[in-house]
Structure formats: structure tokens, C-alpha cells
């Protein structure tokens, strides 16, 4: 009986492993050649990209960068040949049904949205000319200062133009974050004016460290090659409250909020015992003096 169970387990394991690592993902013939109802154009590709960034990027990574999550089987990069050898119908089918660790998006995305995704994938197809071309990133520099009195963060952005001259970076979003223990917390976005400058009004309820200090980090978004700039610490936040982990009123509390009766009982008992011991030791010392009398 046990042998049979063992055999069954081995068989089940074998198939499940096979299922997991299987390279072939067969799509029924009638689904393979379904035509994309949407037109392949910039607008649809852009919409598809938006969905991709929201729903797919976390596992598949950014196109062409091979930065997918290390899962088994590995989620393919959408610009890879492995992905692009699929027909549009096959892509649509696979998004819809899912397999193994790839979830089914039938319930999450509408049919239209799934086709938009396929449109975005086509942007990387070697047989098609891309409609959405990402320009090489612009080299830019950021600087900034914090005015604690006015509660303002002012940032300045510049970039190198084609002639190699420094030029003000106008009408560009700058991300404002603050440093936290486990990473940077975005608190807002400002757009630079004609002078390449922008002001960020620090909210009044911003929480800083124990003393109210906040460290701002400013960065440019996509399309720019600029370093994040960490601005100096400024006392512009409200101090962080450190909660007492053990509330008052429990017997086993810390020394800071120990119940008075508990402290007195402990010290009284131990003190009483040691005073008595001291008294006995004193008596012993007296014995020596008595021998002379």
C-alpha cells in the first residue's frame, strides 16, 4: 500500500515538474491565427505600454533589458525572440489563459486591453517597424535647496544641448522624495518653469525623524540620465513619535513604567532580607569583641 502511495507521489511529482519546466506552450490551432482587431499605431502602442507597465513589468521586466524576475520558468523579455516568434493570436491566447506561474488575465483585463498589450509587443517585432521609439536619455543635472523658514524645496534642472552647452531644462517633471528607513518615499512632483526651476511646498503634516529632520531626494523621470540628488537635512517635519511598546499598567512592564507597588515590593523584600543579613553579620563581628570580656 505504502509502495503504491510512494509511486503515486513520484508520478505526480514527475508530471508537475514536467509541467513547470515545459518549453512548449501549445495554442489550439483555431486560436493561433486570430487577427488583432486593433490597428497597429502609436496611440494603441502607448495605451498597451501603460497596461504593460502596470500589469506585466513586475515579472517580465522592461523590454530589451533582460531584467525579469528570477522565476522558474523564467518570464521571457517581451523583446526577446522567444516572445516575438509567437503570432498575435498566440500572444492573446497566452495572456488570456495563463499557465503555471503565469496568471490568466481573462478576468483582470478586458479583451480590448489584452489586444492593446499585443499591440505594444508588436512594437518590438523584428518584422514590423517600431512606432514608439524611445529617445536616448538626455544628460541632465539637478540641484536644489530647502528653505526651512518658508517650508519650500526649490529645485533647478539643466541639461547639455546638442552643441554641448548647458541649458535650462524647462517644463519637466521633477520627483520629490524623502528618505525613509527602507527606501525613498515619494511625496510629490513639480514641473520646472522657464528658468528650469520649481518650488515644492512642504506639507505641514510631513513626519520627520525623532527631532523632525527630513532629508529630501530629488530625481528626474524617464528619458533623463541624471543622478538623484540628496539635499541636506532640514528641520521641516513634525517629530516622529516613538510609541511605547509596552503600555502602562501591566505588571511585567519596563523599569520606566513599572507599577510602584511592584517596585516597592521587590526592593522591600530584597532590602529587608539583606538588612537582616547585615544585622547577623554585625552580630558575628561582635562575637570577636566579646572574647576579651
Amino acid at each position, binding site marked *: 500500500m505504502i509502495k503504491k502511495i510512494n509511486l503515486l507521489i513520484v508520478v505526480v511529482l514527475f508530471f508537475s515538474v514536467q509541467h513547470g519546466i515545459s518549453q512548449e506552450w501549445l495554442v489550439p490551432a483555431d486560436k493561433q491565427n486570430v487577427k488583432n482587431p486593433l490597428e497597429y499605431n502609436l496611440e494603441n502602442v502607448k495605451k498597451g505600454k501603460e497596461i504593460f507597465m502596470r500589469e506585466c513589468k513586475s515579472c517580465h521586466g522592461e523590454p530589451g533589458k533582460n531584467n525579469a524576475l528570477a522565476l522558474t520558468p523564467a518570464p521571457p523579455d517581451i523583446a526577446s525572440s522567444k516572445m516575438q516568434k509567437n503570432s498575435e493570436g498566440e500572444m492573446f491566447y497566452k495572456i488570456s489563459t495563463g499557465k503555471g506561474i503565469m496568471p490568466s488575465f481573462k478576468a483582470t483585463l478586458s479583451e480590448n486591453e489584452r489586444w492593446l498589450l499585443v499591440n505594444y509587443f508588436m512594437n518590438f517585432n523584428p518584422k514590423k517597424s517600431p512606432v514608439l521609439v524611445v529617445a536616448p536619455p538626455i544628460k541632465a543635472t539637478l540641484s536644489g535647496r530647502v528653505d526651512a523658514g518658508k517650508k519650500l524645496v526649490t529645485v533647478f534642472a539643466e541639461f547639455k544641448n546638442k552643441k554641448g552647452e548647458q541649458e535650462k531644462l524647462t517644463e519637466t517633471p521633477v520627483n520629490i522624495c524623502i528618505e525613509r528607513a527602507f527606501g525613498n518615499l515619494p511625496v510629490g512632483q513639480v514641473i520646472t518653469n522657464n528658468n528650469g526651476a520649481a518650488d515644492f511646498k512642504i506639507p505641514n503634516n510631513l513626519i520627520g525623524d525623532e527631532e523632525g529632520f527630513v532629508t529630501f531626494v530629488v530625481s528626474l523621470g524617464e528619458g533623463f540620465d541624471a543622478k538623484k540628488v540628496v539635499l541636506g537635512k532640514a528641520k521641516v517635519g513634525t517629530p516622529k513619535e516613538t510609541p511605547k511598546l509596552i503600555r502602562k499598567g501591566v505588571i511585567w512592564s519596563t523599569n520606566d513604567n513599572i507599577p510602584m507597588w511592584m517596585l516597592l515590593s*521587590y526592593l522591600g523584600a530584597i532590602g529587608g532580607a539583606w538588612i537582616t543579613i547585615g544585622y547577623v553579620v554585625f552580630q*558575628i563581628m561582635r562575637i570577636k569583641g566579646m572574647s576579651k570580656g
Partner: protein
Amino acid sequence: MNKIESPEESRKLLNKIVFDLTRSIVKKDELTRFWFFILIMFSAVGLWGWGVQIDKGLGVTGMRDYVSWGMYIANFVFFVAVSLIGFLISSTLHLLNISWSKPISRVAEQVAIAGVALAGIIIVNDMGHPDRLLNVFIHGRFASPIVWDVSVVMTYLTISVLLFYLPLIPDLALLRDRMGNEVPKWKMKIYSILALGWNGNAKQYKTIYHAMRVLMILIIPVGLSIHTVTSWLFAATLRAGWDSTIMGPYFVAGAFVAGSAAVVMLMYAYRLRYGLKEYFEDIHFDQMGKLLVFVSLLYLYFNVNEFLVPGYKMKAAEGVHLLNIFVGRYALMFWSVQILGLILPIILMLFRFFRKPLPLTIISVVMLIGAWFKRYIIVIPTLEHPFLPIQNVPAEFHHYSPTGIEIMITLFSFTAALLIITILAKLFPVITIWEYAEEKGIDKKYFSEQPKS
């Protein structure tokens, strides 16, 4: 107590008593050396094991994430338990004027000192970083049973040492005055210093009686606290098997059983080794047997309460724990301890024959071993059930079994305790001479006389 009127008779009897009771100090033969060799060798091996543990960390023990209190803590509880007998015999029985217990009180104090001293050392054994013991004093919480335990163990050790020393002072004077060439000079020097210039005047006796009485009263609450607080280390948690309101008295009753058994064993060893048949008489063993029956019945009563009441209800976590003890992994140990270590001895000791020295000693050995394993059952099975969902936990975390190093260090605690007792027995008489002589009707004035030789 019949007063002996004749001075000659008094002196003769006193000389005999002093001669008999100092035999342990004077006696020096191959067996003594061999005994010391064995104890020192095993202690040294244990200390080496401790060195390995300090060097490599607690990973050399069987303790892991879930079972983080293992054999050391069980051993600690055992030693605290054994030490409690000092307070029962040399204080409670003394205050109640029970005269048969008087010759035994120093034996009980020896056990108490050795037990509580080792209990302190075992706690340090259990720490990966012994230096962090200081943190208890620097960062300790006044509301923590661990701080209470450390405080009370130190207090009890101090009181036990004083209660050993106080009745010893007149004896030390006796030894200083009477022991000549038989003992080495350094021993005589110790006697002379510790005797504090005692010459046995009425004021000195009055002071010493007064101080002893104060200590005997003080040791009762401290003695009760030491084991009650030790039990609270367990009972103050919510864990199944420890979360019990009777843990304090249950521990105290168990302590009397273990301590009485240890005292009986020691009495028998002294009686045999130092020829003290006339001092540790059959009647003392008989009375100790009765005392052992009494405290064992008390312990049995608490055991019934501790296991029957939760066993009746079998609350979820408690039920898992109890099944593990009653019919599971620890069933053999549990039932052996309860039947061989408690119920059977009680029945046997009801008969006069089994309260004779040798049978009683054999029973005591079995009971003491049972008492040690009982502590093991109290500490470990509870920890083997984390009562949390655990996943991907290494198999070695599920069950605890002590490693060689742990057993070595535990053996060290036993040999070290025996070493303390042996040194005390080799330095000082094992029975209080002056109290014993007085009990036999010899007037105090003869104690400070120099023997005519």
C-alpha cells in the same frame, strides 16, 4: 536530655564525641585521594566542554530555536530544588524543636550550599556569552522573574553560608583548641581565624543563639521564594504545561522530596565512610524515611492536581502537550518517574524495613534520579510544541536531545557539587559537635577546656 553530673564522665564522653566527629577531617587514605582525583578529573573534563561551548557557541548543544531551554535549565531547577532541604531541616524542624533533626542539619546545609552554588553556575553555563550575565544587573527589569530569581538565589546562598557558619563557630574553637599534630598547619590557621576568638562565654552563646534564630526565621520566606520564583520562570508564561497556578507549591513540594533523598544519601555515605554509626543512627534514617513519605505524599497530591485537572479538560494546546507526556514521546520517562520515583517509594517506605539505612538509601537514589528526570519533563516537552505554524524548519529543530558537550557540562555540575560537599566535610565536622554534646547532657563549660594529655 539527661544532664551528666560527673565531670570525668562528661570529659570522657566529650573526648569520644570529638574524636569520632573529627575523623572525617583527620582521615586521609588512598580512597580519599582517589575520590578527589575522580571528582577533579570529571570536573576538569566538564570545564573543558564548557570552554568548547564558549568558543564555538551554543550551537554545540542540542538547543535550537524552539527548544531553547534544554538540559541545563532542567538541571538548574533540579539543583535549586535539592538546595531547598537546607531550609526545611536546619530551620523549620529546628524552630519546631524536633530534636532528631539536629545532627542532620549540617548535612542539610552542605547540600543547600552545594546545590544553590551550582544552580548559579548552571545558569551561566546556559548562556552563550557568560559575560552578559552583567546585563541582568545593568539592564534588568524589576518586574522580571529572572531578576527576582537572580536576587533570591544570591540571598539564599548568602543565608545558607551564614547558617552553615554560625553553628560552626564553637566547633571551630573546639578544633582550634584540641586538634594538634593530626591536621596540617593551614587547616589550624583557618580554624583559628574563623573561630573569631571564641572562648565560650555566656554572652557569646547568647549572641550566637540570637543570630541563628534570626537567620532561621529569615530563611523561611527566602527559601520558599527561591523555588517559587524559579517556578514562576515557567508559570509566568502562557505555554501549555507551564501555565499553571499551582506551579509554586508544586515545585516546593518536589524540592523537599529531592532534597530529603539527597540528605539521606549523604548521611549514609558519612555513616559508612567515617564510622558514624552511633551518630547517624537507625532512628535518624527511620525519621528521615517518614519525612520523605510525608513530603512525597504532598508532592503526589500536587502531581494529581497538576495533571488530572488539565487532563480532564484537554484544552486544545494543553491536550497536545498532555498526550505527548501520557502516551507520546515522553510517556516512558513520565510514567517511570511517577511510578518508580514517587508512588512505589511511598508504598515501600510505609514499611519499617525499608526505612532502615541501606534500603532507604537505595530508595533515595532512585527517587533522586526520578527527581532529575521529572525536571526534564517539566522543561523540555512544552518547548517542543511551538504552537505556531512552522514551515521549512530544519528537522533538528523539532525535537531536542542533549549533545555530548551538554551531558559533559551537566556531569560537571554533579561532580562540582560533590566536590564542594567533600571539601566541606574534609574541613569541618559533619555534625555540630557542641550541639550534639549538649544534647547528650554535657555542660557547655567543658567545651572550652583544653584536654589534658
